[in-house]
């Protein structure tokens, strides 16, 4: 082992190795540690024995075995998951994430890249740039890595030819113009034989640049964090006894001083920092990256997931953002999928309401797409169920990066990076009406509400909606029907039947319903609306207590037997794709206000049932 000095001030560099399979990533790290004499003797003995067993040669030394720590990896000779190695030289401390090259394990590469400052991208000189080279570059760039080492490896197999090196370098620089890298350093090497890894290669006198190790020791990859606004997501409420209530968290950006005015997001409650507490000490000021506990000057409602934020420059709290989403699960995703989103310390239900395209990793162009398969990167509109504090990913990784978690399996199924706030209502102030909803409804002798009839095509929604309206009309009530088929002719005539169009259609119907309830009407919506998440969103659009979810429950076989519009027949014949109940899912309401089973009663009885429910709940009186 090399003797190193005891100096805790040495800077830390985190880098990852990436690139296509078999480009020699693990071998490069093994070689670097070996040549720099950073491998313990017992570990070296261990891999000597394994190398001999594997290769049947007494002198063999397979350096990749130093990092490929899983049995399956050593058996197959590939890297499956990211391995972290730690080493120090006289100049620096390093944490290296050695990541897998197989496309199948791209999510593990992203895991390693999310915390790295520098990406070392390996290229096999014989093969040149591959799809994985492009994909990994694209991911590294999106994740905010600004410095790349283009390690053009296996030069020994190309007779150390300069032209080969120059041509690959040129191609890569051309490709990388579309990426956000600030520096690209190309180094010709042989990881297997050690050329230009730790020592300058005598085989490539035409290369005058840094060796790999010299580059790592010298690269300045520190991001600048001056004048950033204060952000601290609250992790844990610290309450040892009645007289102490503090909010523990790690400062995600900026700094905080005792006496600072802050705002508590998403609500925007103001407060003043009274104490900054750390173990057995009080601080006057604390900075980015520090784990602290803040005591405020007043009793306010603060819980995990809230963000303590600068007043002058608060984080955004919009419910709608545009984001890059890297899909990581085997099952593809379409707009409408309901998931959990973890951002900072907040965990909220969220839905992708629109996939507006995906990135072609070879050209960095945006391609049209309405579905994302595993390892694809989409540009999506994400709707959070409630407001949470956030920034863009470019401004702050910890406030703009998020993960999606599957609600059933709890797996991490995607990673996202916020591009911008996408709330359409930004900067629009609400025009306050003088004649209010109550006044309008009172004159009509009723309370406004939305009866939201959901069910399969052919379940009887429209029939029941008409009967309900006639019954209410007979009592002198003011009503209006919004029918799924009818709105398609006007309000939503520009929309098709793709998932995102259906979501938009439902959104429009919900918004129109809300306007009509403001006008004091009783609205009867008749819409398949197959997803719970969309119905829940409609519910949130409508004033609380005025949304009445009515499940028109008719078994699929009965709907198909009735088939009033002949749609099932056409779908069975393959003329219609995405027919709800056949090749597209229908999620039955989880907790509807009303459950109407059409098999048990006639449509007339069903309508009466709904009207009498409205009466008992007081909707039919002013």
């Amino acid at each position, binding site marked *: 082992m090399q003797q190193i000095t005891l100096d805790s001030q040495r800077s830390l560099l985190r880098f990852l190795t990436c690139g296509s399979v078999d480009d020699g990533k693990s071998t490069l790290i093994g070689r670097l540690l070996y040549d720099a004499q950073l491998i*313990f003797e017992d570990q070296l003995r261990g891999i000597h024995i394994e190398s001999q067993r594997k290769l049947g040669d007494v002198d063999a030394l397979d350096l990749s075995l130093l990092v490929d720590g899983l049995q*399956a990896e050593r058996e197959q000779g590939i890297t499956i998951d990211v391995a972290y190695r730690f080493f120090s030289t006289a100049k620096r401390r390093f944490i290296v994430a050695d990541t897998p090259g197989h496309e199948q394990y791209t999510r593990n590469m992203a895991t390693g890249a999310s915390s790295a400052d520098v990406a070392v991208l390996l290229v096999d000189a014989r093969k040149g740039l591959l799809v994985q080279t492009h994909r990994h570059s694209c991911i590294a760039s999106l994740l905010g890595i600004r410095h790349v080492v283009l390690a053009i490896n296996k030069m020994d197999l190309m007779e150390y030819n300069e032209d080969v090196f120059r041509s690959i370098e040129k191609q890569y620089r051309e490709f990388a113009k579309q990426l956000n890298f600030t520096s690209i350093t190309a180094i010709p090497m042989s990881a297997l034989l050690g050329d230009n890894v730790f020592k300058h290669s005598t085989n490539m006198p035409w290369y005058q640049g840094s060796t790999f190790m010299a580059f790592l020791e010298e690269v300045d990859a520190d991001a600048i964090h001056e004048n950033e606004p204060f952000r601290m997501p609250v992790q844990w409420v610290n309450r040892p006894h009645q007289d102490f209530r503090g909010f523990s*968290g790690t400062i995600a950006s900026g700094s905080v001083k005792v006496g600072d005015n802050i705002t508590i997001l998403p609500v925007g409650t103001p407060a003043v920092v009274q104490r900054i507490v750390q173990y057995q000490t009080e601080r006057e000021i604390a900075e980015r990256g520090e784990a602290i506990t803040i005591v405020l000057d007043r009793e306010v409602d603060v819980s995990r997931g809230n963000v303590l934020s600068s007043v002058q420059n608060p984080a955004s709290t919009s419910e709608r953002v545009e984001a890059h989403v890297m899909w990581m699960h085997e099952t593809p995703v379409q707009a409408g999928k309901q998931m959990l989103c973890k951002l900072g310390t907040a965990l909220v239900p969220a839905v992708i309401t629109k996939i507006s395209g995906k990135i072609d990793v070879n050209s960095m162009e945006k391609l049209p797409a309405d579905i994302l398969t595993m390892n694809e990167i989409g540009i999506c509109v994400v709707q959070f169920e409630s407001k949470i504090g956030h920034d863009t990913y470019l401004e702050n990784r910890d406030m703009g990066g998020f993960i999606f978690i599957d609600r059933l399996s709890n797996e991490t199924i995607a990673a996202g990076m916020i591009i911008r706030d996408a709330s359409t209502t930004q900067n629009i102030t609400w025009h306050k009406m003088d004649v209010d909803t109550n006044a309008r409804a009172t004159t009509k002798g009723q309370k406004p509400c939305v009866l939201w009839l959901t069910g399969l095509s052919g379940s009887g929604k429209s029939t029941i909606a008409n009967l309900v309206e006639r019954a209410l009309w007979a009592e002198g009530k003011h009503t209006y029907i919004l029918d799924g088929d009818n709105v398609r002719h006007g309000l939503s005539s520009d929309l098709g039947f793709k998932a995102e169009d259906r979501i938009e259609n439902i959104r429009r119907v919900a918004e129109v319903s809300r306007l009509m309830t403001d006008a004091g009407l009783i609205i009867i919506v008749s819409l398949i609306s197959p997803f719970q998440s969309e119905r829940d969103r409609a519910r949130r659009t409508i004033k609380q207590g005025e949304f009445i979810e009515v499940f028109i429950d008719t078994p699929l076989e009965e709907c198909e037997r009735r088939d009033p519009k002949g749609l099932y027949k056409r779908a069975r014949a393959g003329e219609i794709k995405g027919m709800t109940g056949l090749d597209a899912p229908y999620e039955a309401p989880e907790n509807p206000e009303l459950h109407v089973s059409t098999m048990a009663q006639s449509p007339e009885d069903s309508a009466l049932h709904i009207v009498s429910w409205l009466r008992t709940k007081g909707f039919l009186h002013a």
Partner: protein
Amino acid sequence: MDHLSNLEAESIHIFREVAATFERPVMMYSVGKDSSVLLHLALKAFYPSLPPFPILHVDTSWKFREMIAFRNQRMAEVGVKHLVHRNEEAIANGISVFTHGSGVHTDELKTVALRQALDKHKFDCAIGGARRDEERSRAKERIMSFRNQHHRWDPKRQRPELWHLYNTRIAPGESVRAFPISNWTELDIWQYIKRENIPVVPLYFAKERPTVIREGQIFMLDDDRMPLLPGEKPEMRMIRFRTLGCYPLTAAVESTAATIEEVVQETLSARTSERAGRMIDHDKPGSMEQKKIEGYF
């Protein structure tokens, strides 16, 4: 922030995530230097509260006597609720390294004992002091490492873990092993112990101790349960330990490093890894991974 402060902040963040998101977390405490650091970080993370979870020591009954004395003293000092669990059935059956070999010993007294304790108390998250620089398969493990209902680790299907966003969601019966000091090295541990003045078991410091040499490794005779082989005679040697486990499975190193400064200096110039002294890692290639799959820490 300097390097150690960075590591400390990351670890505290992980501790708080565990406390805030799990119903019944527990912190594993094995009395060694890493556990000493872990305990110190837990005290820091929740101050002025005490750590909001109990501390569990899985006692194989083969720990050095000085470790047990140190444990009892530390637990009394910090005042956190603590539990000790042993696989009493295996102990009653006389399972030991000497009679059953290191494989059965570790399996019954550590892995099975740990599973028993987790099941008995229905803990849904066990915080441990493993570090990625210790061993190859540990270098592959996530900070929040998912376990199925049978406490098994599936190294091929680990959850992606980006930024500082830890997915702590689990179904009933499943659990997570959380590793707050994943990114620390042996040297970081010693430098931090020095900086923070953290108490550790005296066995880490060199002293004359009764020893025998077996298969080229130095073993300390901690009590009379270790049978001497024919021809073996205890000899006093100046030794210390880089890592502490069951005494018949933990080899010492010859050293004169008797103070924390000397230990840090020795760690800086070490030529072998600390786990070279741990017999159970070397049973066969990949043996640590196999133990981990089965539920070992």
